[in-house]
């Protein structure tokens, strides 16, 4: 995580664009820009900026007691416990502090925390849709290998892999939310929570999740279909399947009990791998459907040169990747008893 934070910091430094210009507007005088720069700490040397940045992120950090100082930690910005203090400074234990948005002045963490459940819900729905459809399609294809069904599923999945997700999104939007909107009742854009036009009451609108989730899920469906199909075909020719049939088991028990669990091992790896990369895909989808998630927030932040928000978003995504990879290992161990064994041996 430290590596990611340093890398992201330098990436934004490379842009060599002073966000103060964007904030001040086109007509602003040089003086105004300089004032804004000083206020945001952008006039300081790069090294000093990096140290402040890392100090803010670190769970254990040193802050000045003087409210005018650069590294003063505003009370209430983040949960913190002082563990040691001297006349001018104090050491605190705290949650990582991501700073405040240049644009709105709100703490970055609260901005992102508001959007992340929307994105996660979108990604998870897409993934559930993809896993469910992918495994069923893959199994259907494998069981009837060589039939017209198998061939059309395989052909469809090749197209699904080739289709860029933003294009799929626009296509779905056009067909279901514009041309067929009276029939489907779906809207072109929308958020998870909507305010009623008359009463102003906020309500949950899961309807707005359908099209984005499908658009996001198309590629994973195609990939999971192909992986399930090929791993199922491998497993169906394995010796232990012959043993299961020799036991007298019916084809249902052979396929669903003996073959499926083995065939799903490679699928689990790919599902969890895709969950992480879906976050990247969500960027496009959220922009197209104007869906208020982490992706839309990040894209807006980059457009307006709101560096703290963009940096924070990247860190959030990196964290999600790490967590998802840990989840993969756990799931893998549950599905395949051999993994547990080998980890026991190496430890």
């Amino acid at each position, binding site marked *: 995580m430290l590596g990611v934070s340093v890398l992201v910091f330098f990436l934004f430094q490379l842009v060599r664009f002073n966000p103060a210009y964007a904030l001040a507007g086109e007509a602003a005088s040089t003086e105004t820009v300089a004032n804004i720069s000083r206020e945001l700490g952008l006039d300081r040397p790069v090294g000093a900026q990096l140290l402040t940045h890392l100090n803010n992120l670190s769970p254990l950090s040193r802050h000045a007691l003087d409210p005018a100082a650069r590294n003063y930690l505003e009370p209430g910005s983040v949960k913190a416990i002082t563990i040691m203090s001297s006349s001018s400074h104090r050491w605190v234990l705290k949650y990582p502090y991501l700073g405040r948005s240049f644009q709105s002045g709100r703490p970055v963490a609260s901005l992102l925390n508001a959007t992340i459940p929307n994105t996660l819900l979108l990604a998870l729905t897409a993934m559930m849709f993809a896993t469910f459809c992918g495994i069923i399609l893959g199994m259907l294809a494998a069981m009837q290998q060589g039939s017209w069904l198998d061939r059309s599923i395989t052909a469809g999945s090749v197209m699904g892999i080739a289709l860029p997700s933003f294009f799929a999104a626009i296509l779905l939007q056009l067909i279901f939310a514009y041309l067929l909107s009276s029939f489907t009742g779906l809207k072109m854009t929308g958020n998870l929570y909507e305010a009623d036009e008359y009463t102003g009451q906020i309500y949950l609108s899961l309807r707005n999740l359908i099209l984005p989730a499908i658009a996001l899920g198309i590629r994973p469906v195609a990939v999971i279909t192909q992986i399930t199909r090929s791993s199922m075909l491998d497993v169906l*020719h*394995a*010796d*232990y399947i*012959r*043993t*299961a*049939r*020799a*036991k*007298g*088991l*019916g084809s249902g*028990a052979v396929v669903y009990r*003996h073959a499926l*669990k*083995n065939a799903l*091992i490679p699928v689990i790896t790919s599902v969890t791998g895709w969950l992480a990369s879906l976050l990247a895909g969500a960027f496009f989808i959220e922009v197209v459907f104007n869906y208020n998630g982490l992706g839309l927030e990040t894209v807006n932040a980059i457009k307006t040169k709101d560096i703290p928000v963009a940096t924070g978003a990247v860190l959030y995504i990196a964290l999600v990747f790490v967590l998802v990879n840990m989840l993969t290992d756990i799931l893998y161990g549950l*599905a*395949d*008893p*051999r993994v547990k*064994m080998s980890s026991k041996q190496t*430890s």
Partner: protein
Amino acid sequence: MSILSIRDLTVRFAGEQGTSTAVNGISFDLQKGEVLGIVGESGSGKSVTSLSVMRLLSEPGSIDKGSVHFGEDAPVDLLSLPEKEMRHFRGNRISMIFQEPMTSLNPVFTCGFQVDEALMLHKKISRKQAKTETLRLFEQVQLPDPERIYKAYPHELSGGQKQRVMIAMAMSCEPDILIADEPTTALDVTVQQTILKLMLDLQQQNGMSVIFITHDLGVIAEIADRVLVMYKGNIVEQGTVEELFHNPQHPYTKGLLACRPPLDKHLKRLPVIADFMQEQEDGSLHTTPISVQDAITRETISTADREARLQQLQEQDPVLQVKGLKTWFPSGGNWLGGNKHWVKAVDDVSFDVYPGETLGLVGESGCGKTTLGRTILRLQEPTGGQIIYKGRDLLSLSSKEMRDLRKEMQIIFQDPYSSLNPRMTIGAAIREPMTVHGLYSNERERTEKVIDLLEKVNLSADHFGRYPHEFSGGQRQRVVIARALSLNPSFLICDESVSALDVSVQAQVLNLLIDLRESFGFTYIFISHDLSVVKFMSDRMVVMNKGKIEEMGPADAIYHHPQSAYTQRLIDAIPGGGSKAEVERRKPE
């Protein structure tokens, strides 16, 4: 009254070049309580026959015609039953054990569950009752600690233990017929013996009928009452074990009988099937009328000749001296990387090898013989000791000097299927080591050398551009031998080089190794778990157990006067070349 009656069974396989007949209208009966052996080499149709009885034949094979009647009083034709009714027979009335215990059990379920499943299905009992029954079965097949095995996954068990689980599963519903398809081929000789004994005991207790399929007539002698010999989809001979062993009629049967290394005599070369019959271009057989006895006697070497050869060999200076060699592997240990435990794969081993000699290395799986072979070539770094080859200590050589020396020292591995790259023609595979070591001045000369080598191992120049999948197991092993010979080595280590092959093919490869020794004066270290093969090949033999040398001496002396109980056990495990009566006589009790 027979319990299984097969009439005119024909099985065809649809291939790219039309259909081929795997089983050609065979008919036979299986009596109640009888052990019927079916013997033949790979591709003779013996497994296809058994799978047809179970109706488990998979694409592209299909049953063309014939009938399989099961039952004594009111026989049913299994081949005309609907699939749903057939399931009541599978695993219940007829069950099957397969060749590969490693892959025949489902890796994601516990062994206990896999046996429970069959019981719950056919006996309609609860999970709890099934567990009690399974534990009883595990006890019956002599698995140690049944409670632990019940909860264990297949990968946590040894090959022999997995095969016992398979047997427990097959026996669980007290079937009328048990079909065992090469159940011991993938196992060590000593494990094979215990499994055979177990199957025979269970068969006698339950009075069931057994069809036992194998390529090895020695194994058949241990277990069967009656034998069918299959060759190219036909039954060429059948009879009781005694009849077959003492008065074989068909030349193929004679060949199979003669090609097992004999224990009481010492042969120059092994008789092979080609000594008894040859297939002509038009598919007809040309037979040589010679008896098994004559074929063996023709090749016998006298004891005096052997002793003279051994003495002559030992008068030279040893080419390889191994002194106090140790190869230990770390195990356990803590997270700091410190090691508390060592697995002593090779522990303080010393021996000499003389030029032109074949030193046999024999022992069970896990005794350290493979590690020893690899350590001598420094494919595995030793923990301590000395390896002196032609007066130079190999352990003090730099990696470049060692690379030069590898030209002289080659190893031939066990599995001819995985040791060849499937995407490389065999010609290129044999040529590659020469290119790497810069032998000969150009590719053309190397190619000529490759063709020369192919001819030496009884293949031809036509084979140069073919890919490994076009070859049979025996041919592949010859390709591997040709590749090892491409660098003109003088010292060869054969690590279980013939263990994966049919007995009849094994004889051909062993003969090839002997011919090469005669014409090039190679020195061999020959590693195997089968004492009969080692005895045939070697001048002297080393018996290894748990990383240490159990005993060492002239091959004949060890066989006839074993000093340790462990060697005796290896000798007893050799499948009998004689009848059941002889086997009974050899049993300790």
